[in-house]
């Protein structure tokens, strides 16, 4: 080995080390060729806008985001992919192609090209993009818009609550999914991912039973949940089918069938086996 070349690239190249460097250099740090950090702009905006804290950081890693930032009567500001916003006053993110997101004070989020990451705080989204175009990542789950208007809150622990006003939202994490329609809400935790959705108009007894079941998911906790369920709670029971097994799943199905007429052609056995055509019916 040519020690000088390995040390400071002087002298005759060392063939093997050169080979190694050629291979490993593909992993080197590579900001976008267009990347520059608009430092003066950061300082100027930080000085005059209450929304964004001095620690905010714009990166033109992959170009501009689809989102523009609106604060009060100020002109809309472009945002860049990777930018982190610390919001201390009401703000709105707007995209002609996607929709509008109101960001509440105390929120912290990261902007991507079309997606957002909500670390903590609260947003209210009105989305007109086609389904699945708009995604919000939180520490506990990913909210996938299916054509809707909703509010998403994330607390300091990274746990969340999604409340849907119109349309549907899919809440996903680690293979677990919850589908939340208009008038329903769903909690999510970093530990367990999306919980059971339920309608906001559900009875207090039912909501309490859902909360207790989510805490320990035991067979005894399932009993009051099933007893308190009404026909309007089919959404929750439907989700429970795939989150229980054996006799518990059978108990959930039997209660579901008492409250909600099954579609024609759907057999009990098919549902208990979670056959897609039965579940999706």
């Amino acid at each position, binding site marked *: *080995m040519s*020690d000088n070349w*390995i*040390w*400071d*690239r002087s002298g005759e190249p060392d063939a*093997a*080390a050169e*080979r*190694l*460097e050629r*291979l*490993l*250099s*593909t*992993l*080197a*740090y*590579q*900001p976008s060729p267009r990347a*520059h*950090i608009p*430092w*003066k702009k*950061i*300082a100027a905006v930080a000085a005059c806008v209450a929304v964004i804290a*001095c*620690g905010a*950081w714009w*990166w033109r890693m*992959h170009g501009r985001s689809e989102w523009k930032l609106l604060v009060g009567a100020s002109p809309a500001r472009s945002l860049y*992919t*990777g930018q*982190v916003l610390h919001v201390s006053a009401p703000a709105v993110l707007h995209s002609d192609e996607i929709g509008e997101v109101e960001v509440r004070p105390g929120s912290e989020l*990261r902007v*991507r*090209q*079309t*997606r957002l*990451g909500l*670390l903590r705080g609260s947003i209210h989204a009105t989305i007109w993009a086609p389904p699945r175009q708009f995604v919000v*990542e*939180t*520490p*506990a*789950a*990913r909210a996938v818009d299916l054509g809707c208007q909703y509010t998403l809150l994330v607390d300091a622990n990274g746990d969340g609550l999604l409340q849907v006003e119109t349309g549907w939202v899919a809440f996903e*994490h680690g293979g677990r999914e919850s589908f939340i329609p208009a008038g329903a809400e769903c909690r999510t935790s970093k530990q367990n991912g999306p919980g059971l959705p339920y309608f906001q108009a559900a009875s207090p007894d039912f909501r309490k039973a859902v909360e207790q079941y989510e805490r320990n998911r035991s067979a005894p906790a399932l009993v009051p949940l099933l007893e308190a369920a009404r026909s309007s709670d089919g959404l929750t029971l439907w989700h429970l089918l795939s989150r229980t097994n054996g006799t518990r799943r059978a108990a959930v199905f039997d209660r579901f069938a008492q409250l909600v007429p099954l579609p024609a052609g759907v057999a009990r056995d098919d549902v208990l086996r979670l056959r897609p055509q039965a579940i999706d019916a």
Partner: protein
Amino acid sequence: MNAIMNAVAVTPDSDETALVARAVAGSRSAFGELYNKYAHTIHGIMLARVPFRDANDLVQDVFLCAMERLRELRNEAAFGAWLAAIARSRAIDYHRGKRRWAPLTNAVEPACKPVPAQALAVLDIIKTLPEAYRETLILRFVEGMTGPEIAARTGLTPDSVRVNLFRGLKLLREKLGDELAI
């Protein structure tokens, strides 16, 4: 932090010291120049400790943290060592689960260009080496820094870097065997 700075040799670069002083005084363009100078170093330090896919994002975190804590810097000539210490601390936080963000999937927005599988395989082997060796090897062979540059940017003495580099390379060669014939 002060103990770390006292334990390493510092070769003051008067131009850089002036740059750091301007950054501490609030010059964003000066901080930008420091970013340009140190981004590869921080990426290399991260790469030695965290998964490849997360290293880029963590580089951002480190500079954000440094920007917020610049006023704590006591010795402007030791900026590199101070920044490197922030990076290593951030890597520890990452493994303690203090990651700020659930990873944004890249179905729509690829985060980085594809890299050769063999490169990642060699990187995995480097990561099995002692920490001091792996960081130096990554800074030299991934980020393309020379030994003197590694010493200047991390605050280590050139002798320490030389030992890490050559001993690390020897160990790497033993682990790779004939695979790369190094």
